């Protein structure tokens, strides 16, 4: 089902641990994930579930002094885990483009926009200054900047948040990387601008046939944009499937809770279904058993696996732990017993 030539990234048993005090704790715990050519893979999960940590591990930007990354991130027969810096620098920007959450902070306030975009080209191409400038103008037009000539010479503070995010995108796609990672690219923007930026990302994806990892906690964004969805909880991958499957047949209790917590305009009851509790902090994560168990205490302990594993519940659709089999929401239970 997964043709090897379609594979862009093959992440296996990835662990990323941060130092807290004297010990290391896994913020990404045994994640297996692939990114294919020509797809948008969404990673969703609450704040603190390890999405950014996963993204940063792929591009190798964790501070080695307080972070340990183990496992494999395979890209073109190259293992990115533990890769030496000079080689990694040839991949960053060239093979993997990164888009960050906060466009206001992501650009150097002292550098002209044009120079910031051109900087990527300096280190990955043999272009002359004139060729680079021409390419930058082309990129500015591609990301929808109305007056490229003018913006080329402007500084970040002269642009709006939406425009700056377009610049960040231009930087990420400057070298036409096959992989683009966007970590909450629209969270800091207002709604109308969000839609424009997502459209832009989709257009770029169609044009370049790149694989995009789109990190978000907005399920609405996922439904509109993604081809496949990976749901993360407390550092682990709890459900993975095509967007269609995950939205039509959400299986893991966490995925179901997330979907139910989405405010729905057309819902007949205007009750907000919040998930009780919070994502545990690194130090407080259970080392064994199903990590979501503590937030669904009404589910009997026997429903969970002692060592949760991935179960295939449909073609290309995987779920962790066995608790999904008997899971129901508490109020569903109530209606059942009433009726």
């Amino acid at each position, binding site marked *: 089902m997964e043709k090897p030539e379609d594979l862009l990234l093959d992440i296996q048993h990835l662990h990323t641990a941060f130092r807290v005090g004297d010990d290391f704790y896994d913020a990404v715990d045994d994640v297996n994930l692939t990114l294919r050519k020509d797809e948008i893979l969404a990673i969703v999960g609450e704040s603190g579930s390890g999405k950014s940590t996963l993204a940063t591990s792929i591009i190798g930007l964790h501070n080695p002094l307080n972070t340990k990354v183990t496992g494999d991130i395979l890209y073109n027969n190259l293992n990115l885990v533990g890769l030496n810096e000079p080689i990694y620098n040839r991949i960053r920007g060239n093979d993997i483009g990164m888009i960050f959450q906060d466009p206001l902070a992501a650009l150097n306030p002292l550098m002209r926009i044009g120079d910031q975009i051109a900087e990527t080209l300096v280190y990955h191409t043999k272009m002359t200054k004139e060729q680079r400038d021409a390419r930058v103008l082309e990129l500015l037009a591609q990301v929808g900047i109305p007056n490229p000539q003018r913006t080329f010479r402007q500084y970040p503070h002269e642009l709006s948040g939406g425009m700056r995010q377009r610049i960040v995108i231009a*930087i990420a796609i400057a070298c036409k990387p096959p992989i683009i990672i966007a970590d909450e690219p629209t969270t800091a923007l207002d709604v109308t601008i969000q839609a424009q930026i997502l459209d832009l990302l989709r257009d770029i994806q169609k044009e370049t046939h790149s694989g995009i990892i789109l990190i978000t906690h907005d399920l609405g964004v996922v439904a509109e944009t993604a081809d496949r969805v990976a749901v993360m909880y407390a550092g682990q991958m709890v459900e993975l499937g095509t967007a269609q499957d995950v939205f039509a047949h959400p299986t893991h209790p966490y995925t179901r809770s997330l979907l139910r917590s989405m405010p729905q305009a057309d819902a007949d009851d205007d009750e907000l279904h919040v998930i009780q509790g919070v994502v545990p902090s690194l130090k407080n994560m259970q080392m064994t058993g199903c990590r979501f168990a503590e937030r669904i205490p009404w589910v009997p302990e026997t429903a969970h696996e002692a060592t949760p594993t991935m179960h295939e519940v449909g073609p290309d659709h995987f779920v962790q732990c066995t608790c999904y089999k008997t899971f129901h929401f508490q109020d569903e239970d109530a209606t059942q017993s009433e009726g």
Partner: protein
Amino acid sequence: MWKTILRRFLVMIPQLILLSVLVFVLAKMMPGDPFTGMITPQTDPKQLDALRAAAGLNDPWWTQYFRWVGNLFQGDLGNSYAYRRPVTGLIGDRAVNTFWLALFTLVISYAISIPLGVIAGRFEDSNRDKAIQVYTFILLAVPSFVFLLFSLLIFGYILDWFPTSGYVSLNVDAGTPAYWLSRFQHILLPGLTAGLLSTSGTIQYLRAGVIDNTNEDFVRTARSKGVPERVVFSKHILRNSLLPIAAFMGNSITGLLGGSIYVETIFSYQGMGQLFISSIGTRDYSVITALTLLFGFLTLLGNLLSDIIMSIVDPRIRVE
């Protein structure tokens, strides 16, 4: 940018007027007047009164103020009775001496503090950083005159490596290479010591700036482009960290002028600071007044300079 500078300059005018009024009032409040120094037991009080009237000292204060300002613009600040020469020329000579010492101090200060600040910030919590921290804390904790006195005692008197007073040797002819060499020798010890003493602020600022900027998102963006770490540091982290230092430079210069009072006095270096202290000792009021005015003016100028530097180096300040 020129607009910003012009606007800042215009703002300075009322400040200057206020400064001149303050200094004038202070001068009037001081006991004595330009003729006090001429008084001898033989002086006829009537004759003195006539002299005072002729000099306009009995006019209303605003008339006197405008006359004083008028003279100021013609470069006439009265006479120093201790030195028996016009104040303008006296301060002019001293200002040149102070300028060279302050410039040398500034160069030494940045030459030491910028590398140390960068090392401390880049290698946060390393032993190098800790050593630099200890150094800055000692500088902050011990009063500067203690360092100045010890430096003079050890390197000037005991080791005898440097001249211990004056700004030039007496036995050299002005304008010859030997003369300039001698002047340089005379600013070496005070300049090195004062430069060293004024490093702690810059080191701390720069260290904090480097540490803060290292965690900035735009640095992460630069790394994600595949920019080598060496370039990330120099082009993104360092440039942004040097910004406040550059902006503070104008004020640092003012600070150095204030510090020159200690340095020049302890090293008996004939500059404005030393002149100020000695004039207070001899109650040479016209000199004190003129120097107060000058120091005030230079402080305002330092602020203006800071603003100008800021508007040059930081694009965000260049508002139209």
